[in-house]
């Protein structure tokens, strides 16, 4: 069974988006990067991101990740912030009942776009 289906598919992503986004906004280490953004558009982007890292069907590209985060990199986005994202990702998946092994696979997928996100 594919990772995405193991995790509960699209329904699990829908549940995860609100929890994940809320955790990011409530975390002072990363909240400033979300100042002034349209919350509905941001939620749609996070849904695409979560679908990708959970192994789901996506058409997210490295170029999207680069252009989407370029402005944030100039505001100081660095490896520590990507670590925070992966930390929350793990916590959300745990809350939804994922195993440590599954969370490890999701973290690996998230790490695979780290260099694109940080414009390296």
């Amino acid at each position, binding site marked *: 069974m594919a990772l995405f289906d193991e995790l509960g598919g699209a329904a699990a992503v829908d549940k995860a*988006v609100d929890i994940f986004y*809320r955790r990011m*906004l*409530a975390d002072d280490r990363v909240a400033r990067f979300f100042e002034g953004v349209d*919350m509905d558009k941001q*939620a749609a982007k996070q849904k695409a991101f979560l679908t990708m890292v959970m192994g789901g069907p996506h058409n997210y590209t490295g170029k999207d990740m680069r252009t989407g985060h370029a402005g944030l990199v100039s505001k100081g986005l660095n490896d520590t912030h990507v670590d925070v994202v992966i930390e929350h990702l793990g916590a959300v998946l745990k809350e939804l009942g994922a195993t440590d092994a599954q969370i490890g696979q999701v973290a690996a997928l998230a790490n695979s776009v780290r260099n694109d996100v940080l414009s390296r």
Partner: protein
Amino acid sequence: MPALRCDGQSVPVEAGESLLEALLKAGVPLPHSCRAGACQSCLVKVTAGEPPAGSQVGLRPALAQQGFVLGCLARPEHDLEISTDAAAAASIRGTIVGVTPLSRDVVLVSISPSEPLSYRAGQFLTVLRDDGLARSYSIASLPGSPYLDFHVRVLPGGRMSQWFASAPVGSDVALRGPNGECFYDPAAVDMPLVLAGTGTGLAPLWAVLHDALRHGHRGPIDLLHGARDPEGLYLVDALEAVAGTHPNVSYSPCVLTGSVERTTVGALDDVVFGRYSNLAGHQVFLCGDPTLVQKMKRRAFLAGARLADIHADAFVTAPKPGVAS
């Protein structure tokens, strides 16, 4: 450079320029107001060519399928022919039948539509005067009412609101819409509703409150209306009467300064979130001042409301003439 033709005339358009900008520069008096894709007053119809990317955001499918685009969002990349005449087909006519003061600076404008209009209580319409002046207002009346009611704040120098204040009863206007996501969902009949807004943001909340009651809403409904001072509040007696006759409805007028009886003093967001530290399982409706609405939307989400359960239409005030034109 793409070639643009509007109503058969060639119009110069520069790279990256919007249709609206190009038409206004060429002296075509296209109605417009928010310039941000919300009011839909700069609607035009593409008669040849493809609608530019992103130019149909927020349009009802029926309009998008007919090739309507928003002039402020359309940035032509390819040759395009458009018609402004066809935009009139997307409007209905209405006659102003009454202008009644609700407070120091808010009037109730009632408009009789020339044909029945399908809308949800709490959505907004764009009112277009025949000279092209356009403004969007939330509908305060309920579907099925003979008239469309709007709460209009009369602003110093406000071209449309000053005109309304002069009580132009009998004048005809065009109405375009409805649009907006701020309406009651009958599936939420048992959920607690929190309705919070400032100024004429009360109009959609008033409509949502009455629509919920009409649907037999069983959960609690809490309406909080904020104003700078007690004179800025309106429909106070009517709302107290609704709360008095419906055990599940409560009404809290809030002011920043000048306490009077039964009025809470404080910023609306502080009053709302002082009362609700946990909004999980609530439907939240937020209307009025855009900065405050954005702030409250974020706080409501952090307090546990699902994003899909937060309904917010921030009011957009038209740019001052000469500033953004």
